[in-house]
């Protein structure tokens, strides 16, 4: 096993599924520190599923997932919490807590894991909201904001603890092109300046070309990875016609 100190997530022979149905079979890949790693694939091919396995939310059928060298599948108790503190997640549908306003949604995890005074927490929460252009909506409830705003709030919440790894499930779906492009800039800035590693599921081609350092492409039929690499390289040079179609937006 070539354990590279530059690797932050390592997926080893992972087979994932629900019940008896395998969704992904025997995949292997690594994510490097500070990298923007994009998972691609048709709808329903198991991108969200793969992501949930990478953050240890679902037990794999077989195989292992290492985060920073620690196996998240077998980690328990305090070890597991330590690993989880290092990751932030934005779920596909936001998963904001409906009974709390946006500020409280972000403060929740700060209250749990830091000893910051209340005003410091609120300041940090406002900072996060400002980054996603939600300043002024601190006291709104999740039900009072639009779908795209929910996404942005969820990203702000995922960043609350300054995680080393951010998982974003379709962050730009439902955002207008300008906000979506601002979000891309933000992702790049955070990754360059803070060294945050991003694992992103997205379908937005412009965004993929702009941010992705590397992509993996999942395939529904073979239930495995059919392509890995830089998006522009895959677009021009992949030997798989489906991959070229995907990047060239053909049908």
């Amino acid at each position, binding site marked *: 096993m070539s354990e590279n100190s530059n690797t932050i997530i390592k997926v080893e022979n992972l087979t994932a599924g629900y019940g008896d149905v395998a969704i992904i079979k025997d995949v292997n890949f690594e994510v490097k520190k500070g990298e923007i790693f994009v998972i691609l694939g048709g709808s329903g091919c198991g991108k969200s599923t793969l992501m949930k396995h990478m953050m240890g939310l679902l037990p794999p059928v077989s195989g292992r997932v290492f985060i920073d060298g620690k196996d998240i599948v077998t980690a328990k108790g305090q070890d597991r919490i330590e690993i989880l503190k290092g990751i932030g997640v934005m779920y596909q549908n936001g998963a904001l807590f409906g009974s709390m306003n946006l500020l409280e949604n972000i403060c929740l995890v700060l209250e749990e894991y830091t*000893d910051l005074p209340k005003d410091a927490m609120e300041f940090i929460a406002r900072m996060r909201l400002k980054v996603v252009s939600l300043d002024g909506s601190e006291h709104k409830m999740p039900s009072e904001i639009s779908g795209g705003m929910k996404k942005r709030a969820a990203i702000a919440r995922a960043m609350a603890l300054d995680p080393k790894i951010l998982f974003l499930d379709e962050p730009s779906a439902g955002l207008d092109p300008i906000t979506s492009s601002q979000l891309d800039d933000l992702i790049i800035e955070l990754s360059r300046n803070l060294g945050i590693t991003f694992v992103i599921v997205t379908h937005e081609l412009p965004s993929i070309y702009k941010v992705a350092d590397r992509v993996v492409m999942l395939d529904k039929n073979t239930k495995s990875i059919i392509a890995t690499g830089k998006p522009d390289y895959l677009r021009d040079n992949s030997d798989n016609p489906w991959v070229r179609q995907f990047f060239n937006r053909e049908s």
Partner: protein
Amino acid sequence: MIYIDYKTNNDELKITLRGHLDAAFVSKVWRESINKLESTKPSLLEIDASGVEYCNGAGAALILQLKQKQETQNRRFSIVGLRKDFEQLINIFDPGIIRETAKKGNFFLEFVKNAGRMCCRVLNDTKAEISFLGELLSKLLAAFIRPSSLKWSDTFLIAEKSGANAVGITCLLGFLIGVILSFQSAIAMQQFGAQIYVADLIVISLFRELGPLITAIIFAARSGSAYAAEIGTMKVNEEIDALVTMGIDPIKYLAVPRMLSGIFMMPLLTMFNLLLGLIGCGLVMLSLGFSPIVYLNRIQEAATLGDLAGGLAKTLVFGLVIAGIGCFRGLQTATGASAVGDSATKSVVSSIIAIIFLDGVFAVVYYYVGI
């Protein structure tokens, strides 16, 4: 290693930061540095960040907060030696001047406002309840007139869940009440040598009051709250909106089947409750030395069919009202997961209040009618 140092020089404050500017560090120095700033009120605040090795959101927050405090007071702020990448980070995160949220007004004024708001809410609530009840009844009637328009499979499923599946708990409680009541009254009656009349006492109180009441309370707690939670969750998930835009009336689709099952299940459940209550009482009578035949005769003499019918008639109304309140509270659900819990709680509370009120009304009516 972390390090913070303050130096005052005439009218200037210099803060030196060194080490890892993360949440752990910031939580230690946040209070202290802000207090320092507010007590010295320097015309220039200079932060020396040349020793900062790492800075994340929390660190940025500290620096930005200090900066803001200075700038809102029209005093100067400068930062030196911060690494380029951290500087960029601080620029990304700068939330700008934060507008203070409106301060609370005078206490008395707030109180009057809240009281007014509360009254309006209660009135609106009552109005909504009454109009909802009207709507429900009219749609229920429509369903009776044209039974084919109803989704019968749903209705039966709901009836099974809230009726058939509740038989066990209803019987258990009925039996318990029968045994306890008869045993307790037997002790009192013994002093008068009137133990045989325990049967009269139990039968009358079970048929007329206790049976219907207990069953209604079980129904409210078990099924009314479930209706509220189920419909409330649908409301939260915008499923109710989906029904409306599909042209399906949520009241007809969701509430009417539940009310029908309430109306039909409540009397049946009450009968089970009464039967087990009588059996429980019978056991106690048996143990007191009365033969079963004596007990049966006593029951038949004590209670008329009118007592039984009167009690069961009440349960029809109870079932209707409990199911109606459950659906109403469900449809009224605000947003968020806790709202569903609130609706379930409210449905049980409102149902029990309604049961008590209606029971009183029935008692008065029965008294005048002479049942």
